[in-house]
């Protein structure tokens, strides 16, 4: 897309390598530092901050099923996973497992957690269910025109955005059924995100573009030109920027100064790989980590003066997941071949 970065800074931070015999399908850190890893065999591996060489195996999903969705739970002390056995399960740091809901015969591949709203949402087929902190179902709706493909809470956890064919539906979490707002746009929407200021809902589309609705003034936006479907989106809070996968570099849309309409995206980390498959914005600094389909991982500043640090070299294995620890000192990488790379960046970051 843009000119190649001339000389990526090469840095070798302390790292740990782990290897599992199934694909990594999701990663998330717990608040106390444990890394939870979801696998294609339905297991979760808990990698403790002190004893990361000896991960603990938990089996929240049926053996042979795959973990399809994974997120840190409301309290930060556990994770929620969805599997292709149709179950949605909480696993805590000690490895205790509790089934939250089941969608028999369906793949539970979509979920979202809102710490501020104290809610978890999951979908199977056309149905969305909402659970509170205690695990009680507080709402359910199957009133969607197709299989639900994405869920996102607004920042306060008062509203839930649901993506599906033909657009998205916005619901109030207090009364899931009534007062739904339809956001229509022709085509297949495959993922959804809500901006951190609550003003904008964006979907990723089958047709390799993003579509957005600004809720404050009903303006819509389309961002096209991606080489592949956008599978990964993450927000930088200030200045508000959406970092996305789907190009040969990180494509970042600035939402300041009237953007993103009419403005080209910021493209960072170009010239280093073929396709960005995964992005994760640092929890504190304006920095993004990006994984490529050939295994590279870079960390770079989300600015025009791009500084790029290459952390992981190509090994022909697609990066599936990236996760930053709560304080942003550790970065976890998971690949399709079952490798987990854990970087300690407490002594240096590129910005």
């Amino acid at each position, binding site marked *: 897309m843009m000119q190649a970065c001339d000389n990526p800074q090469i840095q070798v931070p302390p790292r740990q390598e782990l290897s599992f*015999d*199934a*694909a990594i*399908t999701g990663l998330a850190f717990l608040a106390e530092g444990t890394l939870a890893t979801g*696998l*294609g*065999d339905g297991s979760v591996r808990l990698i403790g901050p002190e004893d990361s060489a000896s991960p603990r195996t938990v089996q929240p999903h*049926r053996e*042979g*099923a*795959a973990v*399809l969705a994974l997120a840190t739970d409301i309290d930060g002390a556990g994770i929620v996973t969805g599997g*292709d*056995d149709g179950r949605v399960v909480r696993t805590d740091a000690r490895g205790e497992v509790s089934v939250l809901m089941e969608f028999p*015969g*369906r*793949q539970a*591949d979509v979920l979202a957690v809102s710490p501020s709203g104290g809610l978890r949402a999951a979908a199977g*087929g*056309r149905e969305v269910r909402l659970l509170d902190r205690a695990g009680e179902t507080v709402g359910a709706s199957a009133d969607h025109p*197709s*299989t639900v*493909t994405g869920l996102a809470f607004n920042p306060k956890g008062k509203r839930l955005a649901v993506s599906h*064919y033909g657009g998205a539906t916005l619901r109030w979490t207090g009364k899931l059924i009534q007062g739904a707002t339809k956001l229509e746009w*022709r*085509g*297949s929407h*495959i993922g959804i995100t809500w901006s951190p200021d609550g003003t904008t809902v964006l979907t990723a589309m*089958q*047709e390799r573009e993003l579509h957005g609705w600004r809720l404050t003034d009903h303006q819509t936006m389309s961002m096209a030109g991606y080489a*592949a*479907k956008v599978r990964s989106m993450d927000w930088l809070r200030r200045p508000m920027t959406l970092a996305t996968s789907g190009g040969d570099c990180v494509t970042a849309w600035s939402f300041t100064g009237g953007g993103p309409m009419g403005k080209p995206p910021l493209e960072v980390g170009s010239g280093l790989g073929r396709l960005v498959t995964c992005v994760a914005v640092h929890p504190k600094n304006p920095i993004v980590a990006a994984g490529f*389909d*050939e295994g590279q991982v870079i960390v770079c500043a989300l600015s025009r003066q791009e500084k790029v640090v290459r952390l992981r070299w190509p090994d*022909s*294995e*697609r990066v599936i997941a990236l996760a930053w620890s709560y304080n942003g000192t550790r970065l976890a990488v998971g690949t*399709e*071949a079952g490798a987990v790379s854990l970087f300690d960046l407490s002594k240096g970051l590129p910005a």
Partner: protein
Amino acid sequence: MPETAPIPVTVLTGYLGAGKTTLLNRVLSEEHGRKYAVIVNEFGEIGIDNELIVNADEEVFEMNNGCICCTVRGDLIRIIGNLLKRKGQLDGILIETTGLADPAPVAQTFFVDEEVRAKAKLDSIVTVVDAKHLAARLEDSHETAEQIAFADTILINKLDLVSADELAQIEARIRALNPTAVIHRTERCLVPIDDLLDQRAFDLDRILAVEPNFLGEDDHQHDDAITSVALRQDGAIDINKFNAWISALLRTRGQDILRSKGILNIKGSPDRFVFQAVHMLMEGDDGKRWRRDEPRDSKLVFIGRNLDPAELRAGFAACLAA
């Protein structure tokens, strides 16, 4: 990336009551030593609880890709993507469609979506028909004729309920709709699983196996105006001329042309060129090498509506290399 062979996908079509469920139950319960995931439609009647069964809703989506007849199964893109995350390679995926389903969106899904394409390959379309009721179904539903037209393999089921004469008539009607499909005659869908799954029908070399009917020029009364045109051409084909002709033909007539398939003798190539299309979407690749002692010719089959044999023959003849 560690290259693994794409997983073969079989699409199972057929009118309600033809015997699809019987066949699926066999695939799921028999000791065949292979691992097949089965995607069933939500109204299915599979009586087995099995982690290899996934429910789907037949969500047919229009693609905004400029191809006017291009519809895909959006739910399949997602379900197959998820199945491929599982540990351990599946031997195949079997997709059941409802009795009234048009097979085209299922087939087109495997051409259009890059992620699915990279890991799974449409192996064949299998259509089950009920010997006793086929004639009536062809009268009262256009879906039945389309399902036969699309098929690579056809199971004429419930054979015990018809006479030899009736069977001959049924086969003649099927052949008029689809001259190249492999036909199995069965009771309770009893055909070896190996003869149905992982056939590589879309590799097309198998078209040669049904050679006797391949060139049959026929004047049957056709069902729902679906006809087939089979062409044969001596002499080598100019690949550029052929590409230009077939692309333009499918672009303008792809709505009417349900399936097209061909094996071509390309000038300057030691290999057969095999090509196939579903409506406007086509793919072509090198096939088996020609043997030295083998006569080389080129064959094309079109199945669809409003086909003009003379026009197609003339267009194909104009692709000969100078």
